């Protein structure tokens, strides 16, 4: 029992009145900073007035903390929520999509702040914060966005931990401890990311709207010329083996087969047609496998080399149309990866045929349009030239008299006539359009293909980067007995365009137009290559790490993907982790029980034990040293000094003597 005096407590016993819960100043500050940081990147994709909502609630909450303003009643809160919902409805014109959903979430996240009075509320706010962080990735998935989100998580963890902290700690320390939790969690996350199987979407989600980039589903003079200055990537291709030569790199996107005198379009039935049934009999040559990561371009079509045979992606949403084009079920709103196998050469056991309807379609031209071109073609026909000769004639004409330029003169109603006979200057869409028109007028089935040509090889990661500026238009011509044959009239005018890319093919004034700073400097060019390679790696291994990539990586890492193998590895990793944890825990506690001066004395005891003196239990250090000195008087100097120092450190509160003590023990017995 305590000897302490006690006072009789005669007051009626009762627990002290429980304090009303409130959020301390530092905790509130953490929450405010956390919210601002989390919402910030979302505001670039959401209506900007959401920022105002947050600012108002944050200000209100601060005033509440200072006791100036009261807590909003339920009527005010309902009103605020309604205003926000109405604002979102107005901003999105009543459409419900991903953005609306995230907008609502941000509103709720902001308004919840007004209700945060206890640690429990703050906890809930933090949990919503994690979802907000997740929604950041709906808009941007760059490495920078990931790094920012990681920073958000550190902030979330630090403020989360602060909620349960019961003593004052500096901001830096809170960050450090929060970061420690993240640091410990990251390895486990990596393992989970690599190992956990991926599932397809569980239910349909509202379509994300992606800005439409690249070419559209129609082609008029001047369309692709605008893209020529756009350096942004369209897609990146990794080949399983050697890439095909550059003059075969025609990435087909769309086939345009209807002409109205100025613009090429698709037939309405496009995409509904299934694949030609006689296809299976064809002999495929030069099969090439490659995988493409395409940037979201907001269109359903995808790109492949002639002729796509097989296509795969995670959700199996791509099919091959009758024109051997790739078509996604929905417009591509997110970066996606797919694998294609193309046969660069196809031979048919029996000559393929076009039926009457198809032949009519592919030779149809609008009446009364471009009469002079029509007359030219008919004159060639009347000279009794064959199909091949007419094609050669047309290409020779282009080669002789035409110029490839980014700045062609504007064309009017009869665009082909003006181009062929008057201006004679044009970009790829002019050549392909005029060429297809000429052939159709001569009765040869022809169509325009839009897509990309070539690309820039990246030797750092061995892939091909195809940019928007590589957009190209060419023609496909029906050759009796062979089928559709790719012919690029631009190649007849400017062979450099195909072999070396657009820049080499342009005249001086055009080159100045497309000139970029990075082109001029070798160093910058290399940096550009490396940066794009890093982006490609990120896309390949993080953003598009799907079940297929998973299987490949696991079998490479573990030597197989059997369940028992993965289980064994996981158990092994778990054991290693547990071992590390136990080691860290022991290291943190080991020796902590002993004070440093006691440790020094222990060391001294070890040294004396070698001389044959053992300290008995309960023997003071002084007695022990006396006993030793009785038979070893030559140790007197060292031992008495140690005894004195120990006395000073342990009992006279002079910790500054500690280093001397340790030094003396270290040097003993010399």
């Amino acid at each position, binding site marked *: 029992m305590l000897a302490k005096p006690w006072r009789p407590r005669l007051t009626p016993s009762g627990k002290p009145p429980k304090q009303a819960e409130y959020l301390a100043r530092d905790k509130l500050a953490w929450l405010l900073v956390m919210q601002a940081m989390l919402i910030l990147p979302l505001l670039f994709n959401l209506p900007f007035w959401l920022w105002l909502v947050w600012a108002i609630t944050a200000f209100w909450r601060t005033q509440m903390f200072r006791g100036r303003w009261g807590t909003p009643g339920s009527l005010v809160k309902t009103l605020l929520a309604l205003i926000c919902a109405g604002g979102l409805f107005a901003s999105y014109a009543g459409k419900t999509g991903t953005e609306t959903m995230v907008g609502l979430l941000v509103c709720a996240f902001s308004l919840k702040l007004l209700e945060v009075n206890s640690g429990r509320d703050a906890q809930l706010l933090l949990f919503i914060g994690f*979802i907000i962080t997740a929604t950041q990735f709906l808009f941007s998935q760059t490495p920078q966005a990931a790094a920012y989100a990681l920073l958000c998580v550190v902030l979330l*963890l630090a403020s989360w931990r602060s909620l349960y902290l019961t003593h004052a700690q500096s901001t830096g320390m809170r960050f450090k401890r929060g970061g420690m939790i993240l640091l410990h969690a990251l390895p486990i996350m990596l393992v989970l*990311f690599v190992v956990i199987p991926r599932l397809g979407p569980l239910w349909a989600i509202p379509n994300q709207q992606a800005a439409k980039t690249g070419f559209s589903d129609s082609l008029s003079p001047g369309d692709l010329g605008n893209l020529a200055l756009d350096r942004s990537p369209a897609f990146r291709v990794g080949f399983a083996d050697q890439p095909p030569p550059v003059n075969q790199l025609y990435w087909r996107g769309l086939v345009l087969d209807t002409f109205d005198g100025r613009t090429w379009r698709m037939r309405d039935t496009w995409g509904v047609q299934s694949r030609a049934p006689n296809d299976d009999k064809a002999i495929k040559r030069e099969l090439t496998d490659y995988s493409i990561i395409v940037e979201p371009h907001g269109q359903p079509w995808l790109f492949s080399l002639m002729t796509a045979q097989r296509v795969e992606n995670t959700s199996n949403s791509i099919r091959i149309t009758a024109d051997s084009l790739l078509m996604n079920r929905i417009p591509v709103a*997110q970066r996606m990866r797919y694998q294609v196998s193309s046969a660069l050469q196809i031979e048919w056991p029996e000559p393929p045929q076009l039926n009457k309807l198809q032949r009519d379609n592919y030779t149809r031209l609008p009446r009364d349009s471009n009469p002079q071109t029509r007359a030219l073609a008919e004159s060639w026909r009347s000279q009794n030239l064959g199909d091949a000769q007419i094609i050669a004639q047309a290409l020779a004409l282009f080669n002789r008299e035409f110029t490839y330029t980014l700045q062609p003169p504007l064309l009017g109603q009869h665009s082909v006539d003006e181009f062929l006979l008057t201006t004679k200057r044009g970009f790829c869409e002019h050549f392909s359009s005029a060429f297809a028109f000429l052939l159709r007028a001569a009765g040869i089935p022809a169509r325009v293909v839009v897509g990309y040509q070539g690309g820039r090889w990246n030797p750092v990661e061995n892939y091909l980067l195809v940019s928007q500026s590589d957009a190209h238009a060419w023609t496909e011509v029906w050759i009796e007995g062979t089928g559709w044959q790719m012919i690029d009239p631009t190649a007849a005018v400017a062979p450099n365009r195909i072999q070396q890319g657009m820049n080499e093919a342009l005249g001086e004034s055009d080159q100045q137009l497309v000139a970029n700073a990075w082109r001029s400097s070798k160093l910058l060019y290399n940096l550009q290559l490396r940066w794009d390679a890093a982006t490609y790696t990120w896309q390949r291994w993080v953003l598009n790490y799907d079940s297929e990539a998973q299987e490949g990586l696991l079998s490479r890492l573990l030597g197989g993907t059997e369940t028992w193998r993965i289980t064994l590895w996981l158990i092994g990793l778990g054991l290693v982790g547990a071992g590390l944890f136990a080691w860290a825990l022991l290291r943190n506690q080991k020796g902590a029980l002993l004070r440093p001066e006691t440790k020094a004395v222990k060391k001294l005891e070890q040294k004396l034990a070698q001389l044959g003196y053992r300290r008995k239990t309960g023997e003071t250090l002084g007695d022990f040293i006396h006993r030793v000195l009785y038979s070893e008087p030559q140790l007197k100097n060292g031992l008495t000094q140690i005894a004195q120092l120990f006395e000073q450190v342990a009992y006279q509160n002079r910790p500054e003597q500690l280093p001397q003590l340790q030094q003396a023990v270290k040097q003993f017995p010399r």
Partner: protein
Amino acid sequence: MTSLITSLRNAWETRFYRWIDQRSPRARQVHLNRKNLYTFPNLTGLLYTAITFVIWLLGTNYQNNLILALSYLLVSIFVVSILHAFANLAGISIRFVGARPAFAGDPAAFVLELNCINKAGCDNLELRWPGGETQVITLDHNEPQQVIVRAQSVQRGYLRPGRLLVQSRFPLGIIRCWTWLNLDASALIYPAPIFTDEPHAQASNGREEGGTSQRGGDDFSGLRDYQAGDPIKHIAWKQFAQDKGLFTKEYEAYLSAEKWLDWDSLNHPQELRLSGLCYWALDYERRQIPYGLRLPGLNLAPALGEHHQQAVLTALGEFNLPREAKHAR
């Protein structure tokens, strides 16, 4: 039905506590380590799991690997926080130092000394006896700290507060790490002071009390603050009605003389008699009248002062306890 569930639950608890007792036998000092610490997610942890699942759904439905990675990160944080919660408590040693006596019905203060050999110290540590109030403390590395944890007392004698709950939800509040310690702790509980008739020394004891011992209550001498146990008829209702507070009217009827708290002079059941003696012991002490105690088999000569009062109250608290209660000492 309800009774069935209750009895099942009781049976389960009994078994569980027996198991706990086997794991941590009664001791004056206990070190917390993996043998006696338990961890389990609490309700907040469940909510956290739900949030993780929501994020996973978001990632799966949008086929967004980064969102999926975030959900895996949340899972990892959950796992890591189990280890952190455990590491927060592991390395603490708890020693029972002593207990301060209390009156029956009041909470008794148990003094514990805690030390933490974790480099990071220990945060948000909650200590609680069953039914008592929670004490929250922070421990620094290797700095022993004395803490008072109160347990509610019911009756006089020796109070065994039961198992000490030591728990913490630090650092993230989603994992609760806890233990029940069977500390070898007990506190002496005095009888609750209850007003009874004033005990009189029996004439047979051969000592007449000094002074004039008129029955108190005739000469009003003043007001003092109300204290528990004061007779209701002495409360100054007039002042109370005027919102001045609760006062007791004092009647100075005694002239200073020795008083005897005589067991035989009160005619009540045992516990009420002890409570009455306790009341008067406190009353005499306050009024500085020397008093003695006469219990069957015990005699304490009249005196004053804290030590005397403590001896008297201890005698009252320990008087005629049932065998097992005595054993608990």
